[in-house]
């Protein structure tokens, strides 16, 4: 990324951040703020997915890391650890799971990798669903950060998740600019040539897996805090497909992609809930299905490149 483009990006983020930071002063409706919280959360989650995609690795089982993050916090608290420690555990356990899965999958590519990750997340569902200590299928309640019975206001959650998203994006940029990021995109573009030019592809792919899982786990810890109860459904296919869906709508490999994608998907899902249709959710899913088909055929690279195209022209990249 050249310096001019970077400046444009930073300026864009700052302006957006300012607008979003003052939004709760204007918008008081908790439902709308809830949608924003979900947009922020899914953007972070999709960003962690995107990070793995940077090194050309396709995951359809990211819910495994998200869910492990959620469950780790809840279980650690139940075992008597203080909350700060419990939250810190979440990304560590998720990162370890990432290392484990990465070692298993290191020789797998494309579809094989996607299927193996999917398999991993689906195996976790009955394991947690039949674990007595984790509350079986009913799930486990997640106690509040601030002592029993003290919950944050939706405005505070809003600011918290906004801050979480902003710092994740900054971190994403920083990591992308380092040797790591360069190595990842080299591996993505041509793994064989990357190996030839002296990149230890196995090691870098593992690192990428660990970092991605780490962030998904952290997002899970905060998500658990927000929803208050975790059930084994967190490992289901819906949660795994979401970040990939967001990436394909928003655009892969660009930091803007997950944010734009997440905003569009959430607004679309919530907006269609308000349309009075026969058979409500059924009709909604048919519309979403058709939109997805059209989208895949006519907007192959997602919306982020389309939206930011004029800037690319001026910026002589």
């Amino acid at each position: 990324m050249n310096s001019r483009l970077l400046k444009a990006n930073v300026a864009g983020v700052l302006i957006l951040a300012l607008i979003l930071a003052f939004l709760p002063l204007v918008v008081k409706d908790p439902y709308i703020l809830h949608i924003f919280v979900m947009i922020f959360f899914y953007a972070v989650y999709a960003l962690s997915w995107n990070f793995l995609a940077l090194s050309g690795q396709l995951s359809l089982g990211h819910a495994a890391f998200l869910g492990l993050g959620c469950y780790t916090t809840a279980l650690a608290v139940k075992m008597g650890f203080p909350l700060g420690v419990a939250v810190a555990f979440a990304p560590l356990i998720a990162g370890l799971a990432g290392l484990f899965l990465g070692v298993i999958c290191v020789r797998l590519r494309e579809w094989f990798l996607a299927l193996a990750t999917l398999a991993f997340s689906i195996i976790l569902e009955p394991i947690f669903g039949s674990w007595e200590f984790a509350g079986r299928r009913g799930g486990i309640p997640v106690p509040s950060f601030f002592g029993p019975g003290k919950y944050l206001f939706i405005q505070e959650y809003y600011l918290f998740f906004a801050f979480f998203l902003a710092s994740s994006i900054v971190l994403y940029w920083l990591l992308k600019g380092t040797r790591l990021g360069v190595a990842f995109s080299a591996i993505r573009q041509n793994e064989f040539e990357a190996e030839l030019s002296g990149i230890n592809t196995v090691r870098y792919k593992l690192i990428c897996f660990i970092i991605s899982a780490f962030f998904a786990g952290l997002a899970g810890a905060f998500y658990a805090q927000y929803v208050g109860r975790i059930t084994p459904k967190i490992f289901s296919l819906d949660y795994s497909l979401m970040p990939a869906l967001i990436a394909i709508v928003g655009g892969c490999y660009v930091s803007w992609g997950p944010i734009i994608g997440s905003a569009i998907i959430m607004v679309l899902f919530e907006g269609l809930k308000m349309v009075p249709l026969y058979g409500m959710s059924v009709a909604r899913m048919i519309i979403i299905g058709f939109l997805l088909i059209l989208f895949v055929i006519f907007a192959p690279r997602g919306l982020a490149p389309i939206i930011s195209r004029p800037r690319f022209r001026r910026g002589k990249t």
Partner: protein
Amino acid sequence: MIGGSIIIQVLVWGIILGCIYALAASGFSLIFGVTKVINLAHGELIMIGGYVSFWLAVLTGLNPYLFIPLAVAVSSVISIVFYSLGFHKIMGAEKLREAFLAIGFTYVIENMAVLMWKEDTRVVPSPYRQQFIVVGGFNLGVDQLITIAGTAIVLLAFFFFIMKTKWGKMARAVSQNREAAMMIGVNVVRIDMLTFAVSGAMAGVGGALLGVILYLNPYMGLGLTIMAFTIVVFGGMGSILGAVVGAIILGIAQQYAVFFLGGEWSYAVAFALLILILVLRPQGLFGGGG
């Protein structure tokens, strides 16, 4: 202590499930082999095939096995639509786009099925429901025997088609080298379409049989697709024999898992076997090369 006869009964159920899986997986494998598309909407064709025979059998009150040809026709037409309106337009694109195109199709078909037939679980009424044949001391349902025989016939016809006919030869040529096949005058697009039609037809048979011996549900498609995919990777990408053997193995494993551990473990066990095979033998049971 669990009696030996129950163990064998579960084994038979596993083989039956394996038959349905074999029909699903060999069609899935054929599409992958020829067009390199991973058709994640493949399971929807099975679901639709099952509902077509259910619908007609209930409406007319006739024997549901009479409607298998119609189920085949509907499933293969929908499969051709998948290809010509969808996959054909994004051939050779990123794999992720293919996946989401198929998921778009899945949402549309699945929810249209809910609109037409409601969310309830249905069973196709069969006139042979209570009839059994005693084989070596065990009761085998007539429907189960029909499923096994029907699967065997369809798979043999499929082998014959791929190995002996001119169209099968062309399909194999395309699967080996697309450009070269094009150069010697094979109409690749027509072969692709044929491939989708054949695999849709097999899915239709699978669905019609599945509806009689198990049950139908509008949301069953994606699970079947994932199982077909798992089986194809398990048995070895591109190997039809691997798909059939893998289907039987995973079908049996799943039924035992359901019997001993409970229903929620059925997918987990299949996937545990998949991960095991990916670690020990990444090319799959019958896959050649690396």
